[in-house]
């Protein structure tokens, strides 16, 4: 037998042995997996009608403008109850108590407790497809991520700001007292709600339910949705505040392949500019639109990227913004406070980029990073979070950076950098 023939036979034999070894190893792995399953205990958890967590946080803020740096210690109790009373009746209650103090390095401190009654309402199901609610309800609306122009009930609803993260601002806000009815059919629904005026003045006392913030004027809203195709499910809205002109809205999402979702949220109607609404400029009611549109792509490793463009026709364009910055400081501050309370854009255009990564290289470690860029003045906010979770405990580290020129959208914020460490326990 020639050398080449012997070599060929040896290689063939080697490959066969390798294939057999791989097969044996695979069978061993599968046998080990079956062995684990044999040892798996029987117990499955049972659903509960309540959810309770407590959280402790420490925040270090490095300030702009010669202000003394601040340290904040916060303890939070968050309770949610969703209980079926009997048959067709259901009660929902959600409350959050933030107990915190703010002190600077000179030792001066103030202690304030802020209770946020998020929801307290009863719900009656006349039948499976017809439901009515009454009480304080948080009707979260909007398909977008960083800015929600159709989320009418977001304004004046935030009592305690634990974080600049849009998710946190939505989770920790008050609902509005309202009556709501909803009719559902296969693939669609129609919702009507009325939120009455109950008080005219905001009450910032710690344990006040603050009806003046959420119910300072009569508001009504109609919401209709219908599934057009499996991937397209538009939602149309119309609403009106007291004596203002009606506003119209649209939420639209669509699936692009198996890994991407696109969305569009917009509203339009006659309204004043934000500056006029804040009474720093004369009335200037005109037809204005707002929108937030973008897409989210998810990779196989659970990394999701979202890019969103945001526009508000009620916000200041470049020349208007320069004029407001150059005007009286008191008016500028008044506008900024109003914009934050309204959860609205102070300038006309912005971009929002979000990256979130579940099990980021390490199981149970979630990373999140987003940046919001004001496209008018180029200021930006960057927010980072690393959160690790065990079965009942979560630990997180958050960092926020604000940059921009003085009196820019994010440059004007008193905190230049904020670092927060928090620990949460779920009961």
């Amino acid at each position: 037998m020639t050398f080449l023939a012997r070599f060929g036979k040896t290689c063939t034999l080697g490959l066969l042995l390798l294939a057999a070894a791989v097969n044996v190893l695979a069978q061993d792995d599968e046998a080990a997996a079956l062995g684990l399953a044999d040892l798996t205990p029987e117990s499955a958890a049972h659903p509960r009608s309540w959810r309770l967590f407590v959280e402790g946080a420490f925040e270090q803020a490095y300030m702009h403008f010669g202000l003394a740096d601040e340290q904040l210690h916060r303890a939070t109790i968050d309770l949610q109850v969703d209980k079926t009373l009997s048959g067709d009746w259901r009660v929902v209650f959600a409350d959050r108590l933030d107990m915190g103090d703010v002190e600077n390095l000179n030792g001066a401190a103030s202690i304030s407790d802020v209770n946020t009654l998020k929801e307290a309402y009863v719900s009656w199901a006349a039948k499976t497809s017809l439901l009515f609610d009454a009480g304080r309800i948080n009707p979260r609306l909007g398909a977008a991520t960083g800015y929600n122009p159709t989320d009418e009930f977001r304004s004046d609803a935030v009592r305690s700001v634990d974080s600049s993260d849009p998710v946190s601002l939505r989770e920790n806000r008050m609902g509005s007292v309202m009556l709501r009815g909803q009719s559902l059919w296969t693939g669609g629904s129609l919702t009507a709600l009325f939120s009455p005026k109950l008080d005219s003045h905001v009450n910032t006392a710690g344990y006040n339910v603050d009806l003046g913030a959420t119910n300072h004027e009569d508001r009504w809203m109609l919401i209709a949705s219908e599934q057009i195709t499996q991937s397209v499910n538009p939602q149309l809205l119309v609403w009106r505040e007291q004596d203002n002109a009606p506003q119209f809205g649209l939420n639209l999402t669509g699936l692009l392949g198996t890994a991407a979702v696109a969305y569009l949220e917009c509203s339009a109607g006659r309204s004043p500019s934000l500056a006029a609404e804040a009474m720093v400029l004369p009335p200037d009611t005109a037809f204005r639109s707002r929108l937030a549109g973008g897409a989210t792509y998810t990779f196989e490793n659970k990394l999701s990227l979202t890019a969103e463009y945001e526009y508000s026709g009620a916000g200041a364009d470049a020349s208007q913004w320069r004029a407001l910055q150059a005007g009286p400081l008191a008016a500028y501050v008044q506008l900024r406070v109003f914009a934050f309370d309204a959860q609205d854009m102070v300038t006309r255009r912005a971009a929002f980029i979000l990256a979130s990564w579940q099990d980021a290289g390490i199981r149970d470690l979630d990373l999140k990073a987003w940046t919001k860029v004001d496209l008018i003045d180029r200021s930006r906010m960057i927010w980072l979070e690393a959160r690790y979770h065990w079965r009942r405990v979560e630990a997180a580290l958050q960092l926020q950076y604000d940059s921009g020129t003085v009196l820019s959208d994010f440059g004007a914020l008193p905190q230049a950098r904020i670092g927060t460490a928090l620990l949460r326990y779920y009961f």
Partner: protein
Amino acid sequence: MFDRLMCAFAGATLLLASVAALAAPDAQSILAASDAVRNPDKPFGLTVLLIEYRNGRQVGDNTLQVYSRADPSSGQFRSLVRFVAPPRDADKLMLKNGNDMWFFDPSSKATIRISPQQRLLGQAANGDVVTVNLAKDYHAELAAEEDVQDGDRQMRHCYKLAVSATAPNVTYDHLEMWIAVGSNRPVKARYYSESGRLLKTAYFRRFQTQLGGERPTETIIIDGLDPNWVTVMRYSDYAWREVPEVWLQRDFLPRFKPE
């Protein structure tokens, strides 16, 4: 004489072909029969316990409640999944209707559309957790009949099916399935991506009488890339449930309360 011989030959050929056709099992029917073993034929609910192991150590668990009904037009299951445990995920909901998927968080009251690629909670891909009728979205061909070890380490005589996707945007590009001859019980399956990469191997076992049939109450999933990554899915609390159509849409998610 010759004509009679030809007629006899033709008749014998036809007879043999008929017998062969009758004897050869229809792969698609076998696949559909195995779907029926796994999935009840009326709206139902069950509890799913998922326990995840890495390198032999338990690293996580989820408990889900699943409410399912078949779409009358497509035959594919539409499911509402409620997360029960761990506590941080309690009462979160996922609605799956093919690739039309929505996620609801009771904390933020947000209902968002998610892509099949997004696995917001837990290790198991959405397609694994909820029920699926493979025969509706996949085409099967009989590859072989062979003996294979089942999840209880017993040898089973099985049909080996080569199953390939026919519907767009399904979870897996193609599968190999071993289905027990006679009982049509699913024994084992391998799931592949479009590139041919083995994504996972699944064993079906602990067959029990549930909702009118002998059904696998445990699925063991072994990751294709990392065989030390194992998920045990155990099903319990089977019950016929009324699952109204109005439940299976985005706008109902904030109102969902099964009890």
